[in-house]
């Protein structure tokens, strides 16, 4: 299904918000969303939630014969899947540009940076090596897939345990997990991608763009770094023109962010290890809250209410006093009453008969702006008791009165 296009007013709203350094979810320009890492029951399975973007990572291994030109190295295979579950815009079967871009970026970030020691994956040189396969599935798309995917990949790899193997001469014995404890992979460093969204030809930049921000951005810069401040990959995309000092500034910000995220990952891995050792319950069943069907939850956002009263007073003093118009119920016939009259329909010339048949519902005085919005709802107010002595009883003689309201001065016609 084709992606719903973003309306112009929403686009303008987002761009104006960026100019005023405000984001829709209340973050600062350089803030990340909350990262949550949960592990499955098997080794090598994890779900990473970056805000509402969710990626599932699963690592598996297999003994295969090595590539001809690299006989002593294991094989690493990365695959990111975008299914329609993540966003209706992703169609099954067709491989969109985004998928190629993300997959290549992940490959370069994880394979070319040599984060995993491939020599240690060799069992018998030239005959048998381990093939490690990392499968990533995007479960929900709320922006910044690449960051979440890179975190999921590296966490899954750190969490994974491969079966132990012993070689005696020509004989290779593969031990099952029951016979011997599985062995972790040897990981040199943890590269993490950080995305920067650029707006207005690079004047404004945001870290960790959400899906809406991604739609209106000019371009994206992805920097992958590890905690030793070594850059593993840089990729600029979109039609933006960058300047050298912008790139350098982004790399400094990346250093800070990667340190935070790496710490979080270490803590999560440590917790999981502890739980498994102590024999506690682990796995997705524990970490995903089960009282909600969808398992999505809104995090509590702290709202600063310190000077709300002063601000509110200021606004109230400056604002115009509310209009004195009080809606009085109009009794049409016994059993049917009407409160308020809507504004005149400005869509076009209706037939007289159609207009008489319509009943206009109550519309807020505060929200309607001078006859632009028309809400024609059929509200049947059944048996409204007359409390006010001021109720107007409509007679058959339909005189047209012009009611002018202060202070808005809207021109209304009553029926």
């Amino acid at each position, binding site marked *: 299904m084709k992606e719903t296009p973003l309306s112009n007013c929403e686009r303008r709203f987002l761009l104006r918000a960026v100019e005023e350094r405000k984001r829709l979810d209340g973050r600062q320009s350089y803030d990340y969303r909350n990262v949550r890492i949960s592990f499955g029951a098997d080794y090598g399975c994890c779900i990473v939630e970056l805000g509402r973007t969710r990626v599932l990572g699963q690592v598996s291994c297999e003994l295969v014969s090595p590539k001809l030109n690299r006989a002593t190295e294991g094989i690493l295979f990365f695959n990111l899947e975008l299914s329609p579950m993540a966003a209706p815009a992703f169609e099954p079967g067709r491989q969109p540009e985004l998928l190629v871009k993300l997959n290549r970026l992940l490959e370069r970030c994880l394979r070319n940076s040599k984060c995993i020691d491939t020599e240690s994956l060799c069992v018998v040189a030239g005959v048998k090596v381990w093939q490690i396969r990392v499968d990533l599935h995007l479960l929900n798309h709320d922006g910044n897939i690449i960051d979440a995917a890179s975190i999921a990949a590296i966490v899954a790899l750190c969490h994974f345990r491969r079966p132990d193997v012993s070689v005696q001469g020509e004989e290779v014995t593969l031990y099952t997990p029951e016979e011997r404890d599985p062995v972790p992979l040897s990981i040199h460093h943890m590269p993490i991608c950080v995305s920067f969204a650029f707006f207005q030809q690079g004047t404004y930049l945001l870290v960790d763009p959400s899906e809406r921000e991604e739609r209106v951005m000019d371009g994206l810069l992805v920097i992958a770094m590890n905690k*030793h401040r070594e850059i593993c990959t840089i990729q600029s995309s979109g*039609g933006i023109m960058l300047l050298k000092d912008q790139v350098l500034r982004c790399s400094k910000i990346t250093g800070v962010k990667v340190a935070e995220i790496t710490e979080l990952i270490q803590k999560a891995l440590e917790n999981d290890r502890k739980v498994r050792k102590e024999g506690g319950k682990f796995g997705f069943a524990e970490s995903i809250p089960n009282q909600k069907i969808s398992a999505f939850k809104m995090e509590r956002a702290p709202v600063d209410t310190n000077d709300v009263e002063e601000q509110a007073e200021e606004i109230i003093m400056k604002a115009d006093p509310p209009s004195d118009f009080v809606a009085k119920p109009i009794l049409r016939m016994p059993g049917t009453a009407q409160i308020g009259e809507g504004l005149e329909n400005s869509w076009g010339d209706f037939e007289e008969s159609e207009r008489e048949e319509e009943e206009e519902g109550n519309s807020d005085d505060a929200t309607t702006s001078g006859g632009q919005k028309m809400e024609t709802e059929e509200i049947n107010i059944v048996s409204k008791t007359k409390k006010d002595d001021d109720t107007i009883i409509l007679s058959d003689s339909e005189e047209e009165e012009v009611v002018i309201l202060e202070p808005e001065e809207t021109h209304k016609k009553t029926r």
Partner: protein
Amino acid sequence: MAGLELLSDEGYRVDGRRAGELRKVRARMGVFAKADGSAYIEQGNTKALAVVYGPHEMRGSRSKALHDRALVNCQYSMATFSTGERKRRPHGDRKSSELTLHLKQTFEAAILTQLYPRSQIDIYVQILQADGGNYCACVNAATLATIDAGIPMRDYVCASSAGFIEDTPLADLNYVEEAAGGPQVALALLPKSDQIALLEMNSRLHEDHLEQVIEAASKACKDVYAVLDQVVRDHVHEVTTLLGE
């Protein structure tokens, strides 16, 4: 290849160049009569051919037409005989798709697409011999071809690669240096305004060295710009003399 030094003690690289030296660049414009613009470039042993058609009406799906600018359609392919071992898939594999996307991104930023709404500009690049710096040779060839086609651009787009060995940045890597696995940067630059159209980096590089490497790549791009500019001026001079001014 153990024991192969990429940078000797005297400061010479594998092919005898200095650290900041580019390979020899030879280029020709207008190699095909049928295409709107075409160019052939040789950077050392890397040979690339670029052909530009356009701007013309949208072919294929009309729905992809953009109402306010031209669509830039690129295709990058490597000839099967271009690498040491015969290439099984000239285009369509992941690496080629990625390079196609990068080319498209680079030229969408450089070409003044607002002048041609609802139309399409095709850029086809073919690598005839790959000896390192494939993407950079493609970008340089495509720039020349676009100029040959008469399509207005903001500035030349010049690309160069750079690496980092033993605290020295190297400019314009060849295949041996790329295959060694050290850090590599590919940079596409608009020389007059120093704006980066594409920046791509692979392998590990410490943050502190990033500035040096980008500097080396920028300088190499400006050197390429000098050569390309000369090629364009010579070609225009040749064509105008043939027309009989």
